[in-house]
């Protein structure tokens, strides 16, 4: 066992060493080859301790002999001919973490970055001195001890000025600002993940990012050391406390998500597969519990499961544990999200969410919206919008608000037929205002805002008074609270985002001069040539300044998801082709159009399935559906288009 470990360690170290040496200098290679350092080692089958002892002895002897030979490198003839001493290299190879070796393999600058980020260590920790060989101005060969600072200043920063800049960016006082500019992208496909990993492994910033991670990791050991260091050892204690302070400054520059991201990256910088496994093979619910993913995704499940309207962190953790352990639990939790059931199993929801990219950090409810196109449009809009629709008085108003926001800007909400109307008796005209059948924070289309506005104009409602929404179940006319003022009584079980019944009472008297109009009828995709500029698909593109591309086959889909990290695909297909277990065709040319979003895919032995969110489905419960169903449904729907529309487009 020990021998195997030693073998592995040695081979790893030697490989790592070779990489670093390669990066550092051609002359170093020659030096190592000529000096054959391995000969000095006692062989692969010596035990670990004696190996380390011998190596340590060699290095210590050399260092001791050079103590009187400190150099400030002022006498170097040619800085580019300076090399690291081979015993020194052997020593740092033993004590530096092999996982960062590949980061130093790019060129000499990348090796200097490793020194700057404290990843190059000797037996006492990050190196403070280096042993170098060079010719002095008199052309005589010298081996000298150089301080880290002098080496960096006289060699590293001269050869690699950018390294100096980076080290400053990641200094404790600048780390927070620097990190705020670095996007730690969460991949949505395995290919994308591997590509992200590749970028990191060649990025000059990575040693510094991992330095921050290592600093944070050092906090606990430092605290232990401080507590076990006697007060009499004042100098050591001061040093340890200084290190702890610095580590804590670095910790403040990271949030929990960034820390976990860096942990995964730095622990697996040489292991791309393990790095990606962390994204895709860990339960999504566990990630929520660890605050790596937003809890919004599972909150509708948790509210119902725990029978609580408000959820604490502990509730979320408890709920995430249940969902991770009980695979069938997710299928019928539907009180808050009102989507199609059965939903996928918890395992499949977790798998789909791990591969998905839709930014769905809000909750909606397909049944209560009452219009499938509004659901799809609002989900897409929320994906591209910086602000997610989370401030509605109910879940359907979130969707309606997001939809109306895009439509108000792009076409004055021409298709939004939900309006409140009254007679302007001065100008003798009927005035109608677009309205949401619910309230949304600070929205001028909120139901109570519009009714209050009309009541002020028509019935002299005081400026400091307003009409308030109350659900029919909560309205108790006998209570004093409801005896006066303006109340909007919603019949919540009959209230959809597109159609809602309500009554207005002012001081208990029904208000009859405000009438409501209903109807939201619009093309999602163009349904004729003349409606090409009036389709929601066009409004979304214009409002969010996005490009579009038709998706004809899986090659298009794969390329899109690989090349465009924020891209999603949306489409309309016939529901019986898309969800054949749920809906059955009964007669010729039967098609119920169903809009959907594709935001991820899986591939296995040439077969491809996608992460699908139909407008029937709970936003938090995407389905894994074969590509063939998508293709069939879009193809079937195409038969109903007068313009032969292929209803499957990417937005990016």
């Amino acid at each position, binding site marked *: 066992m020990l021998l195997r470990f030693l073998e592995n360690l040695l081979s790893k170290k030697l490989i790592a060493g070779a990489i670093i040496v390669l990066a550092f200098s051609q002359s170093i290679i020659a030096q190592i080859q000529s000096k054959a350092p391995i000969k000095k080692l006692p062989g692969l089958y010596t035990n670990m301790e004696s190996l380390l002892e011998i190596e340590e002895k060699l290095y210590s002897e050399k260092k001791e002999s050079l103590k009187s030979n400190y150099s400030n490198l002022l006498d170097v003839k040619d800085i580019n001919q300076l090399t690291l001493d081979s015993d020194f290299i052997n020593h740092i190879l033993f004590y530096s973490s092999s996982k960062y070796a590949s980061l130093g393999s790019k060129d000499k600058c990348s090796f200097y970055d490793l020194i700057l980020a404290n990843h190059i260590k000797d037996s006492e920790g990050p190196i403070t001195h280096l042993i170098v060989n060079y010719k002095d101005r008199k052309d005589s060969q010298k081996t000298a001890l150089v301080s880290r600072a002098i080496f960096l200043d006289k060699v590293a920063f001269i050869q690699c000025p950018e390294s100096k800049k980076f080290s400053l960016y990641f200094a404790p006082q600048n780390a927070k600002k620097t990190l705020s500019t670095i996007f730690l992208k969460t991949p949505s496909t395995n290919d994308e993940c591997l590509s992200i990993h590749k970028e990191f492994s060649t990025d000059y910033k990575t040693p510094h990012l991992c330095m921050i991670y290592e600093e944070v990791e050092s906090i606990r050991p430092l605290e232990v050391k401080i507590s076990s260091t006697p007060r009499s050892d004042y100098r050591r204690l001061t040093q340890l406390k200084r290190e702890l302070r610095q580590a804590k400054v670095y910790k403040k520059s990271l949030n929990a998500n960034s820390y976990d991201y860096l942990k995964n990256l730095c622990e697996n910088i040489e292991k791309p597969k393990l790095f990606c496994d962390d994204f895709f093979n860990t339960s999504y619910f566990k990630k929520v519990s660890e605050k790596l993913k937003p809890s919004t995704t599972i909150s509708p499940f948790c509210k119902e499961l725990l029978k609580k309207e408000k959820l604490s962190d502990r509730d979320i953790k408890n709920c995430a544990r249940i969902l991770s352990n009980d695979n069938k639990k997710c299928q019928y939790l539907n009180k808050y999200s009102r989507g199609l059931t059965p939903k996928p199993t918890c395992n499949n929801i977790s798998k789909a969410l791990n591969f998905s990219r839709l930014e769905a950090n809000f909750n909606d409810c397909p049944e209560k919206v009452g219009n499938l196109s509004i659901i799809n449009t609002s989900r897409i809009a929320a994906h591209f919008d910086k602000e997610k629709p989370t401030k509605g008085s109910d879940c359907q108003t979130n969707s309606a608000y997001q939809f109306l926001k895009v439509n108000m800007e792009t076409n004055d909400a021409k298709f939004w037929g939900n309006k409140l109307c009254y007679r302007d008796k001065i100008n003798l005209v009927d005035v109608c205002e677009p309205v949401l059948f619910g309230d949304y924070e600070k929205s001028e289309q909120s139901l109570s805002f519009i009714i209050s506005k009309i009541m002020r104009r028509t019935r002299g409602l005081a400026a400091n008074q307003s009409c308030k929404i109350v659900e029919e179940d909560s309205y108790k006319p006998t209570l004093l609270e409801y005896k006066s003022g303006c109340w909007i009584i919603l019949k919540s079980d009959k209230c959809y985002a597109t159609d809602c019944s309500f009554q207005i009472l002012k001081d208990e008297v029904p208000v009859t001069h405000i009438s409501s109009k209903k109807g939201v009828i619009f093309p999602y995709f163009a349904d004729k040539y003349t409606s090409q500029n009036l389709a929601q698909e066009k409004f979304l593109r214009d409002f969010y300044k996005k490009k579009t591309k038709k998706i004809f086959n899986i090659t298009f889909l794969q390329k899109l998801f690989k090349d465009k990290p924020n891209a999603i695909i949306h489409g309309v297909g016939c529901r019986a082709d898309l969800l054949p277990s749920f809906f059955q065709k009964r007669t*010729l040319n039967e098609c119920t159009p169903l809009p959907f979003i594709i935001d991820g895919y899986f591939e*296995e032995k040439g077969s491809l399935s996608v992460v699908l969110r139909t407008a029937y489905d709970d936003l938090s419960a995407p389905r894994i559906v074969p590509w063939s169903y998508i293709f069939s449904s879009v193809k079937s729907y195409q038969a109903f288009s007068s313009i032969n529309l292929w209803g499957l487009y990417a937005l990016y």
Partner: protein
Amino acid sequence: MLFIRLFILLVPLSSLAKLPEMQTKQALNNIRFLSNDGKYTYFQQNGKLFLSTNYSSSTLKEGEDSTSYLIFGTPTRKTLIVEKEEDFQRNLSPIKTTSLYSIKYGGDKLEKVAEGLFLSLNLEDTWLTYLDPRTKMIKARSLNSKQPEISVQLKNKINPFFRPQAIMPTKDTLFYTDINSKGSMALLMYSFFDKKFTTVYKSRFTGMNLKFCIQDDNIYLGEFSFAEADHGSSIFKIPLYSNKDFNTITQIYSSQLNDIGNIVCSKENLYFVKTLDENKSLNTKKTEVAKIELKENKLSILTDLRYVTNIINMDGTILVPFREKYFVAEGKSRLNDDKLIKDN
């Protein structure tokens, strides 16, 4: 319950012949109903519904361009039901109703009979059942008499997009599917006379989908797993009469695999979408049309299309919709014969 497993002979796939594609005189996209002898073709164009027969055509209904029609018939061939949906592509509301019209088989006079979503035409085309998507009520209405409409409230609260099946084998009874609060689906019988519900069959697990048809005094009930329930598939035969509390149930088919189902009955056969292979990691299935010959209990696979999802019985012709095409599993495939047809 009595379960009797009957042996079924599976025809090897290699013996499959390629199914003929349906050929029609009209553009297939426009056709809404074709009589199985090709004599009557109902088709729509630009929001209008037409009947074409014997080289003449007449307009049945006019509507906006965005209006869509569906037509349903039964083997009785007395009446057809036309479902008219306005703003087909512009108003994607799950609570939207359609207008239901009755029309004499081969006729061109529409009569509005209800507002709702068509479920079934029953009792020699004299009774209509339909769903009110807002109230979630199944309604039954006589097409010949002015009998008051009868309705049954669905108990389902767990799936807002559930579409039940409903069939009336007698004037007094309605068989329909419903879902309880835990997600278990059941086939129920409601007696209008007794105002009494009887559970015909309740699925053994949650996450199961029940589909049924009634043929020759038997209910054929398929119990299929929704995508991820993974409890396999079964088809049962339940005698409609002399079967107290529906205790006699015979299993005529079972499979470990999760079939899509979507069963369709004809006089002698039962068709369904059978899964031949599945990859649970990708949720992909190889699915084909299977036929059970009811007398022989013999099962055969009819297609080799890999991704079949639906089967249609259109006036006795069994069609397999596959992308933009229709393949004929049973019945005439050439319905574009230009010979003049003599009136009977």
